């Protein structure tokens, strides 16, 4: 069932038009979507699957136009989740008409996709985007030739200059009112295929198939898994694989030929110098020797931008929250209520909200890489290394983001179209050491390894990458023996991201993080405060928190950790940065005063057990926000529990090994 739009019910249904936006990846579909709807966008999951569904609303001449952004696909096959969604929606959804977005500079694949959609007998408007770019490099497109050959309205648009947007809206309203398809375009596939199509159509005629029969026949003949098996179930003859491949090639070839002839007729001077600039940039960015240094330099810049530039704002927020906290206490005096407000809510929620600038900055940097067309290149360059670990270059990009925060990193796996690879990437992401764990590392390393803390930090990060990649091997070995997914993607030409697109990109993703993390942290902050304040009215030694820690102490017996450390780890499962604040609360040292912390913790740990502790913090249980994201992205309780159990087991075993080999080494020296 397609999702209802929020305004749909409130207005007369006559005045609402539902439009599906389809197109190949990277043709400027998102830009057009943004240009038409602005920030009036809603993100939900497609029913039944966890791929993001984007809807936007705008009005024109009294019509409410509800735009549904379909996932970008090169064709309407059945191999990736994106293809399935786009095709199912086009076939069975309730769209009144379809806009096919085609790249004016490089139209071939877009027109191929268009032919597939036209065969479903849909009302389609062709929107040729990036018309400004095409003009700039001297490509001339004859609109009337296109309309004549394809039998549908064609609009030239540019999301940069705004050209054609009004005309497109006009066409939507005008065309949606018509009851018939303007002109049916039927491609003739030659005698052999046509006679087979006729046979299949005749056979299906009385079978109450709700899908266009010709489309069904074409898909059945070419051996599309869904239609072929349905056809056989209905009683159509089984075809040999050779036959199916034969039909598939004939059909695809005919479509390509038709596209070629249309391009020849309607396009003048296509594909000339524009691509040479893109190729020149590519030559440098994917160069044999330069590509790796350039790639790491770019990543370094992303990190620098995410942490340094945004740090100023983070510090400001930090200051604001601590001022706010103490203001509450000084105004209303010290009591249970002000303690809840200042220590619990402002302290807890604030500790996460201070990361907001980093998150937004990271998405801005990421948005730039994505919109400019660099991301597919990075995937291309890194693919060989990732393949060794049963992943592909696409997984690499989303993992890299995990150093900032695992939540957006997991969300970024949506770009991975292979479901196996996507799931594995989601499950291994929590091992990428996020920025929330940094405060814990820094505190412990300063106490136990003041001289070599930088080297130790490097070691922890390296170990984190190693465990991530090895986990992919382990999970693949456990559940998917012997399968690797191919890397087939088109490298789009480079383009300068527009400010509007970057803004929408950053805001839409950052907003998501704020909402999700905000609610989880808010609740857990209150909970931790309650558990530490009661029943003894502020005496931590006798609080519920102490009881929890003491009752869990046995798990950590082999490590020899006290209940205070156990409690910090327990609360740290909510958010890793909570480890430090819990410690400061339990040991009664101020977070700022380093000497107090040193004194308290030195009594509990030696350097070896401190390292084991850090490794444990690095690997154990994803934070609540991450767990929630894993759940929402996989849609599976089983995988979420697996992720928790697996990471806990890895952390436990790994830090135990480090603890005992470390002790042995110390003894021998």
């Amino acid at each position: 069932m397609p999702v209802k739009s929020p305004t749909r019910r409130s207005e007369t249904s006559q005045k609402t038009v539902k439009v599906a936006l389809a197109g190949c990846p990277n043709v400027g579909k998102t830009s057009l979507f943004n240009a038409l709807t602005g920030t009036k966008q809603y993100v939900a999951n497609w029913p039944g699957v966890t791929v993001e569904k984007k809807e936007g609303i705008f009005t024109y001449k009294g019509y409410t136009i509800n735009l549904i952004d379909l996932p970008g696909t090169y064709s309407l096959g059945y191999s990736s989740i994106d293809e399935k969604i786009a095709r199912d929606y086009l076939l069975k959804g309730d769209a009144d008409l379809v806009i096919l977005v085609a790249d004016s500079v490089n139209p071939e694949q877009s027109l191929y996709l268009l032919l597939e959609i036209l065969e479903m007998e849909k009302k389609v408007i062709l929107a040729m985007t990036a018309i400004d770019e095409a003009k700039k490099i001297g490509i001339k497109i004859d609109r009337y030739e296109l309309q004549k050959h394809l039998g549908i309205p064609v609009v030239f648009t540019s999301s940069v200059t705004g050209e054609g947007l009004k005309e497109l809206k006009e066409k939507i309203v005008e065309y949606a009112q018509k009851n018939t398809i303007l002109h049916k375009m039927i491609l003739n596939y030659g005698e052999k295929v046509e006679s087979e199509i006729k046979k299949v159509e005749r056979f299906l005629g009385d079978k109450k198939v709700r899908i266009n029969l010709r489309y069904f026949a074409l898909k059945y003949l070419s051996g599309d898994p869904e239609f072929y098996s349905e056809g056989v179930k209905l009683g159509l003859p089984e075809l040999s694989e050779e036959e199916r491949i034969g039909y598939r090639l004939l059909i695809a070839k005919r479509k390509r030929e038709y596209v070629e002839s249309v391009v020849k007729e309607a396009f003048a001077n296509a594909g000339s110098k524009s691509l040479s600039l893109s190729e020149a940039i590519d030559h440098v960015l994917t160069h044999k020797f330069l590509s790796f240094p350039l790639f790491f330099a770019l990543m370094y810049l992303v990190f620098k931008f995410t942490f340094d530039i945004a740090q100023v704002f983070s510090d400001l927020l930090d200051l604001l929250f601590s001022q706010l906290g103490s203001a509450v206490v000084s105004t209303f005096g010290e009591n249970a209520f002000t303690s809840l407000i200042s220590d619990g809510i402002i302290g807890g929620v604030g500790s996460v909200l201070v990361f907001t600038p980093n998150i937004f900055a990271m998405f801005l940097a990421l948005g730039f890489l994505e919109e400019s067309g660099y991301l597919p290149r990075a995937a291309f360059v890194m693919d060989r290394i990732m393949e060794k670990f049963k992943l592909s270059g696409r997984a690499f990009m989303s993992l890299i983001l995990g150093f900032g925060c695992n939540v957006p990193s997991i969300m970024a796996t949506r770009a991975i179209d292979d479901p196996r690879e996507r799931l594995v990437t989601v499950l291994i992401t929590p091992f990428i050491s996020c920025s929330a764990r940094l405060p814990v590392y820094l505190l412990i390393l300063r106490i136990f390894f003041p001289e070599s803390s930088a080297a130790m930090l490097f070691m922890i990060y390296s170990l984190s990458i190693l465990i991530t990649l090895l986990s992919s091997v382990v999970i693949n070995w456990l559940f998917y023996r012997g399968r690797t997914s191919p890397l087939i993607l088109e490298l789009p030409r480079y383009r300068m991201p527009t400010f509007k697109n970057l803004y929408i990109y950053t805001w839409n993703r950052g907003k998501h993080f704020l909402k999700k993390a905000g609610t989880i942290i808010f609740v857990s902050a209150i909970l931790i405060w309650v558990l530490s304040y009661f029943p003894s009215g502020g005496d931590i030694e006798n609080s519920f928190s102490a009881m929890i820690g003491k009752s869990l102490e046995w798990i950590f017996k082999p490590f020899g950790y006290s209940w205070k450390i156990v409690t910090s780890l327990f609360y740290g499962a909510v958010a890793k940065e909570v480890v430090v604040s819990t410690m400061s609360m339990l040991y009664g040292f101020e977070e700022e005063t380093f000497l107090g912390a040193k004194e308290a913790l030195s009594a509990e740990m030696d350097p070896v057990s401190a390292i084991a502790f850090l490794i444990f913090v690095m690997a154990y249980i994803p934070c609540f926000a991450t767990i929630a994201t894993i759940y929402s992205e996989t849609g599976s309780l089983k995988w979420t529990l697996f992720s928790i159990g697996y990471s806990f087991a890895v952390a436990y075993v790994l830090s135990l090994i480090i603890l005992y080999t470390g002790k042995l080494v110390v003894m021998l020296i």
Partner: protein
Amino acid sequence: MKLSKLVPGVRARIKRLEVPGELHEKLVGIGFIPGEEIEIVQVAPLGDPLVCKIGNRNITLRKKEADFIEVEVVDEELPLILADDGTYEITRLDVGRRFLLRMKNLGIDPGKKIQISGGRYYIEGREIDLGYGEAAKIWVRRVSDAGEKSHSQK
């Protein structure tokens, strides 16, 4: 010849795809269709994957998948390593001072004829010994149609 064996800068035509299952549909959908011209434009720094150019589009593909795609060279001029048995004229040599010197000593010059038979190279009836890297830098053009019969042995 397999697409994975093709070298950058040489145009070829797709002959057939020997791809199993779902991947076939995906490759056909994105444009890998017999008859289409194809060229490798870029090889990733670590040797894999490749970027192929079909029409105006650049598409990445791993060598593993490129192994499924059978192509034939359409360019007149091609590097020696891609040449089937037959007689060829040497058109040019890629740069490299030591390489050029060694080639001169072997008697390899633009304009000379070179025969390939059973994967071995002959100039004026004398067999010459060339490494893979060297043969990749020598560009030749087919001169006679006498090579047709040796085509069939493949």
